[in-house]
């Protein structure tokens, strides 16, 4: 009896071992079938790949700027950056405007009733804040002094450019730039489509439509769907010879369906442009000739991956730009919730 149970036990153990081994093999097969590593298992040929990796790489020789500072933002959703008098840095986001000194120390905070979409600061220190459908104006101390009339349900305000006697407001929803006086009275529309006159209007597929005043006294307006930047007088007349921009995924042009998403103008009239899709910031001459790269995709966090790029694309955050009187460039990196401060590389650091 005892001998019989001794001879049965090894067979029983072997059977258990076999079952465990089979279970392990089955587990491996299940793991492989469920394809936990994304695209590894689709089995589609190479022609089905969509790969932008080579376009994300920037030739280091083209990078003419280096990061010299950074402002960490205590905001969940920073939306816009601007520079005001004395090179103070203004950041709009959540329901507030945060103001920083040029040395990056925080100076003050203006609380808002709603989420700001864009902002600009006048020479007198007046702060113009674009909400979805109207502009609010604050004095330099942070007191609200005006609440301009709503532009209607269709309005999507995306950028503001104050001038001496005018304020220009980009409206992506209506695909025009509104021309105001400084008291908030509407004076006209710029760039409206008019087929009889052969004016195509601005092409704005997504809500990124930027404007900026240049030192030459002309308003610059991005026409993102055409990958161009137009020039207008403060009266709203287009200066066609000054229009520039090239559609290209190459570094000299603007990539994707609609770019640049943001512009800023340096004190000498040169342009800083920011693109979405492949996030890259570049400097162009006053006539639109490509000069150098300020920052490439590797600067911005998080680096888009194959698993992130298609998820909730309509909620993707896009960089914003500003420049100060010293030529420093401020790039809002909304995903990292920070402002990157970049300056031209010095000769010995190139």
């Amino acid at each position, binding site marked *: 009896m005892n001998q019989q149970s001794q001879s049965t036990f090894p067979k029983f153990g072997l059977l258990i071992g076999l079952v465990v081994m089979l279970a392990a093999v089955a587990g491996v097969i299940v793991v492989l079938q469920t*394809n936990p590593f994304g*695209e590894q298992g689709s089995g*589609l040929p190479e022609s*089905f790949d969509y790969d*932008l990796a080579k376009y994300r790489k920037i030739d280091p020789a083209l990078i003419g700027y280096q990061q010299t500072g950074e402002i960490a933002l205590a905001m969940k959703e920073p939306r816009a950056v601007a520079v005001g008098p004395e090179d103070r840095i203004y950041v709009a986001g959540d329901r507030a405007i945060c103001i920083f000194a040029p040395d990056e120390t925080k100076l003050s905070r203006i609380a808002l009733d709603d989420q700001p979409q864009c902002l600009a600061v006048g020479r007198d220190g007046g702060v113009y804040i674009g909400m979805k459908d109207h502009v609010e104006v604050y004095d330099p101390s942070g007191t609200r002094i005006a609440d301009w009339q709503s532009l209607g349900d269709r309005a999507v305000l995306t950028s503001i450019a104050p001038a001496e006697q005018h304020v220009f407001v980009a409206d992506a929803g209506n695909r025009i730039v509104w021309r105001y006086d400084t008291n908030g009275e509407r004076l006209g529309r710029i760039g409206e489509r008019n087929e009889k006159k052969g004016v*195509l209007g601005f092409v704005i597929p*997504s809500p990124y439509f930027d404007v900026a005043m240049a030192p030459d006294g002309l308003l610059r307006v991005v026409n993102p*769907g055409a*990958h161009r930047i137009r020039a207008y007088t403060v009266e709203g007349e287009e200066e066609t010879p000054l229009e520039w921009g090239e559609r290209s995924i190459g570094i000299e042009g603007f990539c994707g369906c609609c770019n640049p998403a943001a512009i800023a103008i340096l004190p000498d009239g040169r342009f800083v442009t920011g693109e979405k899709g492949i996030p890259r910031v570049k400097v162009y001459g006053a006539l639109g000739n490509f000069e150098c790269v300020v920052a490439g995709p590797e600067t911005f966090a998080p680096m888009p991956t194959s698993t992130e790029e*298609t998820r909730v694309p309509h909620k993707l955050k896009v960089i914003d730009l500003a420049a100060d009187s010293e030529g420093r460039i401020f790039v809002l990196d909304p995903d990292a919730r920070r402002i990157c401060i970049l300056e031209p590389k010095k000769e010995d650091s190139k």
Partner: protein
Amino acid sequence: MADSDGKIDRRTFVGNIVRAGGAIGIGGAAVALAAAKGRLGDAVWQIDPDKCIACGNCATYCVLDPSAVECVHNFAMCGYCDLCTGYFEPEPNALNSGAENQLCPTGAIKRKFIEDPYFEYTIDKSLCIGCGKCVKGCSAFGNGSLFLQVDHDRCAGCNECSIAVACSSRAFTRVAAGDPYLLKGREGNG
């Protein structure tokens, strides 16, 4: 068990509590199941477009050939771009319908001029295999108006969907058969 005073001992008391709890649990589960069935009715598989990463598995893991998954287009979200990054290769030679410029390997997207400078893009269902390449192109630069959905005119309705098993982003979900699509925005057009 109750003693002569009508009192019950501890064991009987605990036993009664456990039985009552079990009965309540079974009853609650039955009510919850009935409520879920009433709410959902018959359920079918669908792709949550906000979770989908267009990995390509939909094209190859479906028991059907071609797959029951295909691209749909929400025109309300579309920018009608001349340079549509869901239609064109990243570096097209020209913005025309030449095969060498098209992103879709099966040529399933049709480009039609509307008015200067706008173009409309529609999906030819008979050619789409649900690979999601156009979805990636549209989402990388554009508004994400192209996205993948299970076409319930074609879906075999497997209880265990083989694409759902292979879906790495867990984008497959059960939805009511009476409302079987998860479209982006307020409107959607296939």
